[in-house]
């Protein structure tokens, strides 16, 4: 069955956790024991309604403070599709967890509290959605019950977001605006009786219609080699299989391929998956490939079709989202992980900080702080084979790792 991955975004208390709980409830995805637990807790806390955020806020600290700290992955399905929704935190200090949840999403729901309208975190999250180039974005104007289901309020917010979208560099995005009440259930799964002026679909209806195939990933074929399989048994004495996952496009037996970065060429001899051989494998498949010639291939190398080569360079320009308390500064050194390939990287330039309200950049800053987004240039200890993020998401992104702490400190999008 197809799986659609959806991320939520929005400021604290805009109702993300409540919305997910409501979706689970209205699609009958909450099992009896989980529902009983929510009823019981809601009663204990003296609420006269069901506090659905209790379904997703899984950490003690979260329930104590009534906030979401880290991403929760929630699973449910309807007859037509399976869904994974990432419930993400709204606080600015947990933006990195929001990026974590959104990076693998094919669609995103940005919640806005109808009373407050577009606030700083809305800008930031909308910006990150654009940076990640998430194809389908729903702007869910929530808590409509608290603004008398006002069409004017809804239209004002819609206008503001449309204006922001007009300034975004990413033009391929489908924006959908839905007025709803997560708490009361209006336009979540069932159509609201309180907003006759809204002719569009309910949120669930909309999500059910979205294509689970990640069309964003359609591009040139990239096959980063994770490991070389050498059984060294009698039967498979000379077997050298290159294990990896196919990104971008398909691979077929007989394809002429180049091994990067060495640029030696060969032909695909066989495509294996477990104990079977195939003529062709589609993108997204983890398979094992053998080549006609005995060429030198090891982990981190990449197989591509001869006519579809990426950039091979020891330097790159990127936009980076910083995720560490210790700020990024020019001339610092990090490990870079580009897909399954590792190298060292030195920040040669911190060019600018990008303002997440789409109002421009700050040139030549001295450092990039936690949760800030900026443009940098990197020098690499060895050549990497990469694409621009806009052409190939998996081959156009990387992470930086602090060599002192081993923590993942930034995520980069190659220009």
């Amino acid at each position, binding site marked *: 069955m197809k*799986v659609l991955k959806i991320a939520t975004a929005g400021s604290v208390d805009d109702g993300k956790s409540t919305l997910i709980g409501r979706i689970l409830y209205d699609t009958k995805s909450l*099992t*009896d*024991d989980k529902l009983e637990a929510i009823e019981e*807790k809601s009663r204990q806390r003296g609420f006269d309604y069901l506090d659905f955020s209790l*379904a*997703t*806020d*899984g*950490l003690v*600290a979260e*329930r104590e403070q009534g906030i979401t*700290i*880290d991403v*929760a*992955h*929630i*699973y449910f399905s309807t007859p037509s599709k399976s869904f*994974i929704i990432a419930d993400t935190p709204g606080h600015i200090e947990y933006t*990195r967890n929001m*990026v*974590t949840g959104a*990076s*693998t999403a094919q669609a995103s729901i940005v919640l806005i509290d109808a009373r407050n309208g577009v606030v700083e975190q809305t800008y930031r999250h909308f910006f990150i959605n654009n940076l990640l180039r998430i194809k389908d974005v729903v702007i869910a104007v929530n808590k409509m019950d608290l603004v008398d289901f006002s069409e004017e309020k809804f239209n004002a917010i819609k206008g503001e977001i449309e204006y922001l979208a007009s300034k975004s560099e990413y033009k391929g995005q489908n924006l959908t605006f839905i007025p709803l009440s997560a708490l009361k259930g209006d336009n979540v799964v069932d159509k609201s009786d309180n907003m006759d002026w809204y002719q569009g679909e309910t949120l669930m209806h909309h999500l059910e219609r979205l294509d689970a195939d990640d069309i964003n990933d359609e591009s040139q074929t990239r096959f980063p080699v*994770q*490991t070389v*399989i050498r*059984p060294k*048994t009698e*039967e*498979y004495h000379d077997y050298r299989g290159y*294990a*990896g*996952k196919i990104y971008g496009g398909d691979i077929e037996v007989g394809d002429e391929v180049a091994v990067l970065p060495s640029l030696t060429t060969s032909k695909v001899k066989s*495509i294996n*998956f*477990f*104990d*079977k*051989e*195939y*003529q*062709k*494998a*589609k993108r*997204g*498949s*983890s*398979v*094992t490939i053998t080549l006609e010639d005995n060429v030198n291939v090891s982990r981190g190398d990449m197989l591509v079709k001869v006519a579809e080569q990426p950039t091979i360079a020891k330097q790159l320009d990127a936009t980076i989202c910083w995720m560490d308390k210790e700020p990024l500064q020019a001339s610092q050194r990090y490990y870079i*992980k580009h*897909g399954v390939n590792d190298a060292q990287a030195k920040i040669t330039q911190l060019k600018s900080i990008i303002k997440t309200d789409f109002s421009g950049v700050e040139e030549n800053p001295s450092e990039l702080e936690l949760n800030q987004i900026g443009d940098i240039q990197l020098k690499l200890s060895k050549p990497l084979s990469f694409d621009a993020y806009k052409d190939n*998401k*998996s081959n156009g*992104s990387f*992470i930086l790792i602090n060599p002192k702490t*081993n*923590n*993942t400190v930034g*995520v980069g999008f190659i220009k």
Partner: protein
Amino acid sequence: MSKETIQVDALESEAIFIFREVVAQFEKPVLLFSGGKDSITLVRLAQKAFYPAKIPFPLMHIDTGHNFPETIEFRDRLVEELGVELIVRNVQDNIDSGRVKEETGRYASRNMLQTETLLDAIEEFGFDACIGGARRDEEKARAKERIFSVRDDFGQWDEKNQRPEVFDMLNGRIDLGQNVRVFPISNWTELDVWSYIEQEEIEIPSIYFAHKRKTFVRDGMIWSADDAVVYRDEEEEVVERMVRFRTVGDMSCTAAVLSDAVDIVKVVEEIRDSSISERGARIDDKRSEAAMEKRKQQGYF
């Protein structure tokens, strides 16, 4: 030889990708094998990831001594077939030496005691990556887990400070003394696992299928009365019922469910229509709302 086009299913492809990352990034990985359906599924995925080579790491079972006999038989047959190494470490040894104290009474369970034995074994063998079959849909603290989850020497999970995990890049860099818990089927649901077992025709222990068993009822749950391991009050009446198990943890904390599902097709149907979650039959989670999170902080699977 079949010469067609293949599209590996997204969840299966992701799990295989994760297994290969583990082997490439760590020196001494181990697969934590309980004999349950999730770890059996892991074994099949590991086989697929490295075929035609053998699975390049051992399996380890932390044995509470309270396992269903069917599970142990099954385990031994599986490792024999695969030709992989099996390490067994017993909770009983720590009880005998007095390092840990066994609970007694109504809800007594050795489940918590596994943590101590696991941490000892990690240290004994110097494992730097422990692969487990936990899934995010099981429980709400587990819904917060990363795929590579870093633990310190005490096995502790620092849940408020997890590494960001973006796209499918997995950062396995750790300091000496740290280790990583790896969860290749994080994104699978219970139904996904059962459907996969059906599709792949994977063999699983017989207790997963409906069978007649002597049982008694306590707190609305059905317990096995076959064995001395599960504590039973005199007045709790033993009745033979048609039941099966949805998870096979320690016998003392795993309740059975009434079921007519005698084969895999029926089990998949039953799971699809079920209105109770899998861990609803685990008394260890019912101890408190935060039971799982607390156990994880202390180094549990």
